[in-house]
């Protein structure tokens, strides 16, 4: 475990999480959530949780994002907050 890498990943994860909530464009927000999920996944690989990371990559970053994107396309992209 390399603490520099660890630190960078943690910072990016938090940044993505905040970004996902702050961005006004819903599609951007949802993509940001996917990125958040990917950083999470990297964090877990780094902790030795390969199975969780694999699942997160496929389920979290993959399917969940797809669902969200469909929902956003079906509804609207704008958001007031």
């Amino acid at each position, binding site marked *: 475990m390399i603490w520099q890498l660890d*630190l960078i990943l943690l910072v990016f994860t938090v940044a993505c*999480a905040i970004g996902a*909530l702050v961005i006004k464009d819903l599609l951007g927000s949802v993509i940001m959530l996917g990125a958040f999920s990917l950083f999470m996944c990297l964090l*877990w690989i780094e*902790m030795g*949780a390969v*199975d969780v990371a694999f699942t997160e990559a496929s389920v979290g970053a993959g399917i969940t994002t797809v669902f*969200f994107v469909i929902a956003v396309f079906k509804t609207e992209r704008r*958001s*007031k907050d």
Partner: protein
Amino acid sequence: MEFLSGHANYFVYIMLMMIGLYGMMAKKNLVKKLVGMNIFQWSLILFFVSIGAKEGGTIPIVEGAHGHGAEIVIQASHYVNPLPHVLMLTAIVVGVGTTGVALAVLLNLYKKYKTLDEDEIIGKL
């Protein structure tokens, strides 16, 4: 300082959890609420995986297992704790199930009210 470095992961998970919780409660847009919900759930998963982490442990797959199984002696300290991983696999799947159902409800809501803003929907109820 030692305490901080030893608990850095916990603090990050706490921070993420607060972000997610705030997003779920305070954001007016329903999609944003669900984004918050996902962040909240994943921060919980991060917490669980952190419990199982072990300094100097490797991924929980037995090395050199093929062929000659029985003779291998396995030391618990060599591998990270697999139990939280198992639990979290379940939690991830539960999360995606919840998201799916929530999105289904959300689409129904949009069809009826043509908006995703909570206040506007309450106004139209």
